[in-house]
């Protein structure tokens, strides 16, 4: 039970961060990506704040033998730079640039009852599902 409550808390804190930083607003995000328009550097400071906290705290956290509520840390093992990584990031970037939505803000915006967020999130889930179908072993 505790591990579900902690995950819930982390989701809330993450979502509040998206609200406070206004990254939940696609036009705010596009203001950063549009270097030819009225450029808004805010997104860079959001990343700087997040990286400062996440980067320094992980040095302390990973000294532990295991996380507080689980048996082990589950960290990404992949280190290679390959075609799927670059192609996937490039495709994601096209969708992000067209909409201003990446997965976190799109999900958070669902509770505000914005129809566009539902359309985007539905299509995003379909895209993820499509990948699972095409990539899963036959």
């Amino acid at each position: 039970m505790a591990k579900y409550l902690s995950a819930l808390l982390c989701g809330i804190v993450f979502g509040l961060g998206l609200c406070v930083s206004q990254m939940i607003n696609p036009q705010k995000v596009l203001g950063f990506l549009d270097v030819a328009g009225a450029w808004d550097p805010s997104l860079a400071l959001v990343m700087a704040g997040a990286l400062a906290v996440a980067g320094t705290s992980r040095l302390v956290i990973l000294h532990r033998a295991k996380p507080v509520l689980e048996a082990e840390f589950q960290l990404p093992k992949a280190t290679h730079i390959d075609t799927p990584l670059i192609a996937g990031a490039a495709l994601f970037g096209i969708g992000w640039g067209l909409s201003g939505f990446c997965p976190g803000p799109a999900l958070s915006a669902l509770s505000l009852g914005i129809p566009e967020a539902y359309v985007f999130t539905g299509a995003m889930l379909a895209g993820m599902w499509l990948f699972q179908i095409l990539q899963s072993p036959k």
Partner: protein
Amino acid sequence: MENFTPYSALSGGVLIGAAVALLLLLNGRIAGISGIVGGVLPPWRDAVGWRLSFLTGLIVAPLLYKLLGGQLNVQIHASLPLLVVAGLLVGYGTSLGRGCTSGHGVCGLARLSARSAVATVTFMLSAAITLYIARHVLNLGI
């Protein structure tokens, strides 16, 4: 730079970093949103419960923010067909590249992963070029 909001951007970023740190400390997991969502869809290769809890928190957070007196402005100019195309690309692309803004851009960069740095530079460039063409060349009104 009249739209620049440095203080709210930094404090929001600190909250996001705190969520990333807490999820690692308590659950031993990486707070990459696309990965957390992808794991909720079939086939279920990994635990689903903590993912649903995290996503519930992420989704209710704006309501709490408003309850606490916060003001939210969510402006979307893209048309519905364009949002469908964008959503499909974001879903497929983050699955193929195994990460999004949070997974590669925050969690990956925080552990100085070269793989995540390449992904982050790629999606930033791709998004900026796409937006330039869509907004300033094709005048799609986004």
